[in-house]
């Protein structure tokens, strides 16, 4: 835990330094509205990275490339069912969560029972879900607008803190508690650390593995559902932009690709850091080409830094 806190601390300190630097480059970067916008964007990235946190923690080269497609599913089908009104909000949210968990369960079964590599399994599932959404959009032409409540959740603030950020904090704390204080959470970690030992000590590792993909699907679908409040409307490919960044954020946040190590504290800090970095690069007048190159180079730098922190610990 202390290692996770240190990683999180270093990454958060880097984000603050970047924000201060950004204020020199673009005055107003440190303003209240700017910072809360940054945190809102971080919240969505952080929620998608939470999916990866669970899957990575359970090991077996676990990554989930279907979070984007499932997020789009939650957003598009959710908006279609809401029809721009709040009347059935909770029921629709529950339905979307269930749908996401169901899709995740299919991936989990493929990984745990058939032994398909997670990368491939979730990629295949993603293409089916995305394909299904294309058919749904073209045939049903459903309503795509967010409901007033979702717009408030993503757009408004309570006592100065954006609602979605408060939600992120609550979900993040719940995940931290689940992973460290419950028996199932500890089983996920021990399966990732050493599946053989976990199996021999009586853990049902197939069930553990299926459960992390189900949780990932649940979180992804609900994040996509909330995302339409922020974007304003659902569209095909809504969640696609989060797929690879969510994995990158989880790894920079200290999750081991080998499984069993890392904490969501570091991942959440990494989500803020990457968001600040991206928007700082967007404010500098260097053009898209330069931005991409700097982003790639800094990412490699973070990977190297990350390894140093890991070795020190």
């Amino acid at each position, binding site marked *: 835990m202390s290692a996770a806190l240190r990683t999180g601390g270093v990454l958060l300190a880097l984000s603050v330094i970047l924000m201060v630097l950004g204020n020199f480059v673009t005055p107003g970067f440190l303003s209240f509205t700017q910072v809360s916008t940054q945190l809102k964007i971080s919240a969505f990235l952080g929620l998608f990275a939470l999916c990866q946190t669970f899957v990575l923690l359970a090991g077996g*080269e676990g*990554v989930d490339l279907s979070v984007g497609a499932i997020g789009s599913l939650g957003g598009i089908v959710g908006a279609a069912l809401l029809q721009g009104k709040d009347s059935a909000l909770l029921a629709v949210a529950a339905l979307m969560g269930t749908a996401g968990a169901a899709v995740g369960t299919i991936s989990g079964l493929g990984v745990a029972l*058939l*032994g*398909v*590599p997670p*990368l*491939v*399994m979730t*990629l*295949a*599932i*993603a*293409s*089916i*879900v*995305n*394909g*299904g959404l*294309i*058919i749904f959009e*073209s*045939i049903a032409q459903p309503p795509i607008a967010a409901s007033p409540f979702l717009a408030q959740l993503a757009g408004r603030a309570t006592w100065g803190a954006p609602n979605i950020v408060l939600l992120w904090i609550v979900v993040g704390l719940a995940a931290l508690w689940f992973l460290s204080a419950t028996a199932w959470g500890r089983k996920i970690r021990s399966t990732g650390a050493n599946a053989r030992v976990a199996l021999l000590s009586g853990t049902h590792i197939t069930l553990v593995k299926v459960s992390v993909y189900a949780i990932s699907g649940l979180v992804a679908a609900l994040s996509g559902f909330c995302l339409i409040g922020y974007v304003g409307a659902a569209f095909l490919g809504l969640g696609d932009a989060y797929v*690879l960044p969510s*994995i*990158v954020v989880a*790894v920079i946040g200290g999750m081991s*690709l080998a499984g069993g190590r890392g904490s969501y504290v570091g991942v959440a800090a990494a989500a803020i850091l990457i968001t600040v970095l991206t928007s700082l690069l967007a404010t500098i007048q260097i*053009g*898209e*080409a*330069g*931005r*991409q*190159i*700097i*982003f*790639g*180079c800094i*990412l*490699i730098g973070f*990977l*190297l830094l990350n*390894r140093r922190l890991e070795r020190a610990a």
Partner: protein
Amino acid sequence: MRSLRHARILPSLGMLVVVFAMNVALQPDLITRASLSSNVATFAPTVLVSAAQAIIVLMGELDLSVGAGVSMLNCALSTLPELAGWGLVPTLAATFGIALAAGATNGALVAYLGLPSLIVTFATSAIWFGVALAFRPQPGGSIDPALNELYAASIAGVPIALILILIAIGLWSILQRHPLGRQLLAVGGNPTAAFHAGIDVRWVKFRGHCIAWCFVYLGSLAISAQTLSGDSRLGLPYTLTSVAAVVIGGISLAGGRGSVWGAAFGAIALGLVANVIYFAGIPSIYQEFFKGIVICIALSFTFILGRRTIE
């Protein structure tokens, strides 16, 4: 060992035969010379990039930057002539240099710095994409039409596109009999054992990446010869397609098992699936969905059959 290697190719070969038969049934004039060679010309870029991905996956790594790499090379091909006033040959040579440099960069980061390839090639893909944009912020420019004529030509009745594919597979066959090829497989199968057997694991992986990027270069030439212009987004879809082809081709993502043949079959099968969907008159909105289903079916064959033959 040899029969085992062939066993892993069988599912993809079977799929290829089935999809080809479906394609012929739907489009009887497919088996004419003109139609076959135009299909080969279309599939060649995917086959070549998949061959590159296959070599990297056989070493137990993954390269998410091949697609952006194809874009970068395509933009270099279309920009260098007007930027430096070069003819076709110096442009081709310089672009080959860029490809080797990209492969060497990935190889150094993965092999010598030991960074996870999944994440680090995502980072380098941003860099390649940035370089592509620097060469060509907007789609456009032009590539010497001689490249297109060369690509459409044939030697002794064999289209150049097919020769490119044969070269890729031929190179792999030579490599397999060469110590480096065996070392690539050994490093992918069990790096610790390879290390104890006296193999310089890092040097092998580094060279493997450089060889793979020679194929990325050929793939980029093949696609550029068809479009004859530069587009920084042209190559991006190749990343995921090449991974899918490799997996359908029965190459283990854990490394060490499979062959470039499988990836070539997988890539051609994926291309034929698109043909079948088109000629079956299935509305375009269903394409993505059916493609996903086909990949899933191929996957389950690969895993169920593959398991049985190995266990």
